[in-house]
C-alpha cells in the first residue's frame, strides 16, 4: 500500500493499520486495494459477497433522500433486527400451551435484558409492517412500477402479504388473551371462502380449535417457513432492482433531476475503462441511458448512507423499546373473550369491514384489493414521468382529492348503514343480501366507478391508477382509525376518550 503512506501520516496506529492491511492473511480475505480510487471502490462492492447485491456505481438520483425516503432499506433493516432478536427469543420460548405464556413472563421479569429483546422484536415488527406499506405507497406515487419494473412490483405485493402473515403468526405466540382471540377471529375468517373454507381453517389450526396444534403450526410458520420464504423473495426483489436498471428515475430533460446537487461532484475519472464489472447484458445503469458523470461509486456514497439509515433504524427501535413495553395481557382463556376484542392496529381496518360481513369484508374485498394492487403495472404501463412524485401537479391534486374522497365516504357509508342498513329495515334478510349490501361492497364499487371515470375523462391510465390507489389509501386509513379509536366494548361506537379496553 505504498500510495497510502503519504496521507495516513506516521502515527503508530496508521503504521499498524498499514501493516495489517498488507499481511498475507488480510490480502487473502480482502482482495482489492485501499478504496481511494474508483477502481478499488468499485471492487470493494463487486468482490464482496454481502455488498455485491449493490451495483458498483449508482445514479445520483437514487441517493436523494426524497427519491425513496429510504423506506425499502428501512424495511430491510427492520427485518434483520427481527431475525436477530427473534432467534434470541427462541432460546427461552417453548411453543406449548402450558409454557408459552410463562416463558413470556420470564422474558419480561427474569431473563436479563429479555424484556428489551422482546420489546425490540415487537416494535420492529410493527415498524416493518408500517415501513413495507409506506414503501409500497412511495413506489406507487413515484410511478416506479412502470415497465420494466412490473414484476418487481408484483414481488413487492407478495412481500407485503407475507409480512402481514409473519406478524399475524407471531401474534399468537405469547398465548395471552389478545393473542388467543385475535387468532380465533382471524382463523375463523379463513373458514369463510366457499367450499374450501373449513378445510383451510382445519389445516391452519391443525384441528378444530385454537389449541396446541395451532400454536405449534403458527410457531413453525413464524420462525421457519415465512422468514425463509420472505428471504428468498426478498433476494429476488433486490436482484430485480438491479436487473431492471437500478431505481426508477426521471428521464433526462423530463424536468427536475439534474445530476449534481445531492451527492456533490462525484469523482468519476473519465480517462479510464472499467471492464466487465461495470457492464452486464440488458438494462443496467450504464448501458446507453446515462452519462458517466451522473453516477458515483456505490462505495462510499451508497454504503455510507445505508450505514446511516441502519444506525437510525436501530436507534429508533431501541429507544422505543426502552420507553414502552410490549403488551402482555392475561393468559389465554378459551371461554371468555376480552371486551372489546381487537386485532393489532394494522388489521383493524379489516376488522371494521369484517364487522359488516365476514365473507365480503374478510375474504372478497381484501382478496380483490391485493389482486387489484398487483395488477396496477399491467393496467397502467404508460411510460409517463416515472420516478417523479405524483407524475405531475395534476396527479398530486388528484391524489389528495381522491384520498379525501375515500376517507370521507367511509364514515358516510357507516352512518348510512347504521341508519338504513339492510337488517334494520328487513330483519330477516337472507345472508346473501347482507353480504352484498354493506359498506365494503359499496366502497369497492364506488372506487371502481370513480377511477374508470377518471381514466375516461382524462385519457390517462396513470391518473386512473392514482385515483384508485389514493381512494383505497384514504378509506383504509379512516377504517383503521375508526377501528382503533372509535370502537369500544361490544364493538359499539364510542369516542376515543371513552375507551375502556386494552390497547396495543
Amino acid at each position, binding site marked *: 500500500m505504498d500510495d497510502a503512506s503519504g496521507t495516513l501520516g506516521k502515527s503508530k496506529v496508521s503504521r499498524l493499520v498499514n501493516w495489517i492491511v498488507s499481511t498475507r492473511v488480510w490480502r487473502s480475505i480482502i482482495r482489492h486495494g485501499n478504496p481511494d480510487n474508483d477502481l478499488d471502490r468499485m471492487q470493494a462492492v463487486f468482490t464482496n459477497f454481502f455488498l455485491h447485491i449493490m451495483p458498483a456505481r449508482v445514479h445520483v438520483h437514487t441517493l436523494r433522500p426524497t427519491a425513496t425516503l429510504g423506506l425499502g432499506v428501512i424495511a430491510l433493516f427492520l427485518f434483520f433486527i427481527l431475525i436477530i432478536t427473534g432467534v434470541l427469543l427462541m432460546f427461552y420460548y417453548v411453543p406449548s400451551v402450558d409454557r408459552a405464556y410463562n416463558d413470556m413472563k420470564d422474558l419480561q421479569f427474569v431473563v436479563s435484558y429479555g424484556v428489551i429483546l422482546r420489546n425490540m422484536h415487537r416494535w420492529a415488527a410493527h415498524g416493518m409492517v408500517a415501513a413495507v406499506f409506506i414503501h409500497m405507497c412511495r413506489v406507487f406515487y413515484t410511478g416506479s412500477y412502470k415497465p420494466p419494473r412490473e414484476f418487481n412490483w408484483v414481488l413487492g405485493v407478495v412481500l407485503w402479504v407475507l409480512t402481514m402473515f409473519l406478524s399475524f403468526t407471531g401474534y399468537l405466540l405469547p398465548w395471552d388473551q389478545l393473542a388467543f382471540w385475535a387468532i380465533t377471529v382471524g382463523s*375463523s375468517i379463513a373458514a369463510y371462502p366457499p367450499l374450501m373454507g373449513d378445510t383451510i381453517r382445519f389445516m391452519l389450526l391443525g384441528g378444530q380449535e385454537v389449541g396446541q396444534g395451532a400454536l405449534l403450526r403458527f410457531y413453525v410458520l413464524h420462525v421457519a417457513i415465512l422468514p425463509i420464504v420472505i428471504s428468498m423473495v426478498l433476494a429476488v426483489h433486490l436482484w430485480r432492482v438491479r436487473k431492471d436498471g437500478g431505481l426508477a428515475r426521471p428521464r433526462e430533460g423530463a424536468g427536475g433531476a439534474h445530476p449534481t446537487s445531492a451527492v456533490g461532484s462525484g469523482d468519476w475519472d473519465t480517462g479510464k475503462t472499467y471492464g466487465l464489472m461495470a457492464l452486464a447484458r440488458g438494462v443496467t445503469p450504464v448501458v446507453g441511458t446515462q452519462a458517466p458523470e451522473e453516477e458515483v461509486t456505490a462505495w462510499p456514497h451508497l454504503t455510507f448512507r445505508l450505514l446511516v439509515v441502519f444506525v437510525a433504524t436501530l436507534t429508533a427501535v431501541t429507544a422505543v423499546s426502552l420507553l414502552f413495553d410490549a403488551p402482555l395481557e392475561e393468559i389465554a382463556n378459551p371461554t371468555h*373473550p376480552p371486551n372489546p376484542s381487537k386485532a393489532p392496529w394494522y388489521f383493524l381496518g379489516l376488522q371494521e369491514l369484517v*364487522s359488516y*360481513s*365476514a365473507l365480503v*369484508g374478510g375474504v372478497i374485498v381484501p382478496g380483490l384489493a391485493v389482486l387489484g394492487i398487483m395488477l396496477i403495472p399491467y393496467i397502467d404501463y404508460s411510460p409517463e414521468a416515472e420516478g417523479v412524485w405524483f407524475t405531475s401537479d395534476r396527479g398530486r391534486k388528484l391524489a389528495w382529492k381522491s384520498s379525501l374522497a375515500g376517507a370521507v365516504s367511509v364514515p358516510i357509508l357507516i352512518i348510512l348503514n347504521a341508519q338504513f342498513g339492510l337488517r334494520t329495515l328487513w*330483519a330477516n334478510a337472507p345472508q346473501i343480501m347482507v353480504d352484498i349490501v354493506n359498506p365494503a361492497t359499496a366502497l369497492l364499487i364506488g372506487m371502481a366507478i370513480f377511477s374508470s371515470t377518471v381514466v375516461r375523462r382524462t385519457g390517462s391510465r396513470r391518473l386512473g391508477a392514482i385515483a384508485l390507489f389514493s381512494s383505497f389509501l384514504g378509506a383504509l386509513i379512516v377504517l383503521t382509525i375508526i377501528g382503533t379509536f372509535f370502537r369500544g366494548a361490544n364493538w359499539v361506537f364510542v369516542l376515543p376518550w371513552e375507551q375502556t379496553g386494552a390497547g396495543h
Partner: protein
Amino acid sequence: MSKDYGDYQLEEGGRGEAKEKESVSRRSLLSIGWIASLVSLIGPGLANIRYLFPNVLYETPTAFKLRKPAEYPPNSISFEEDRRLFVFNDRHGFRAMSAVCTHLRCTVGPFGPGKGATSRCPCHGSLFDKQGRVLSGPAPRSLDFFRLTESPDGRLQVDTQDIVSADMYFKV
C-alpha cells in the same frame, strides 16, 4: 456414423434428423422425461398436503355431561362457561344453545333478565335473541342448538356435533 443406444438410434452429432430405425426422437424422449419427472412430484406433493391433516385430535371431546336437571332452576338461562353454551329450562323442558358466535367464534355475552332479553357478541356486536336468531350485526346464521340426553348417572348430556332445531326440547 451412428451409435447404438439400445432401442434408440441417435445420429452422431445430436440434433440431426431421426433415422428410419429410430422410434422416438431425442426431443420427445427428453420431453417425456421432463414431464414424467414433474408428474412424479404430484404424488409426494399430495401426500405432504394430506400429512398436514391430523387423523387424531387431542381436543376437548364434543360430547360431555352437564349438571343434574334439578340443578337448573325453573324458567332460567344458565351459562356453562367452560363449555361455552347456554342451558334453557322453561315450561317446555330443557334446551342447550351454543354460545359460540356464528360470525367468528367469539363467546357471546350473557342474557339479561326479562322476556325480550338478548345476548351481544363482544367482538363485532352481533345481537341474538333467545331463539338464537340474529337481530343485528354480521353473524350470518342463528346460534346452534344441541341435542340433550340424560346420562346413566342422571345428568344432562350434550353432543355438540348433534345440532337440532331451536324448538326441540328435552323433557325429564
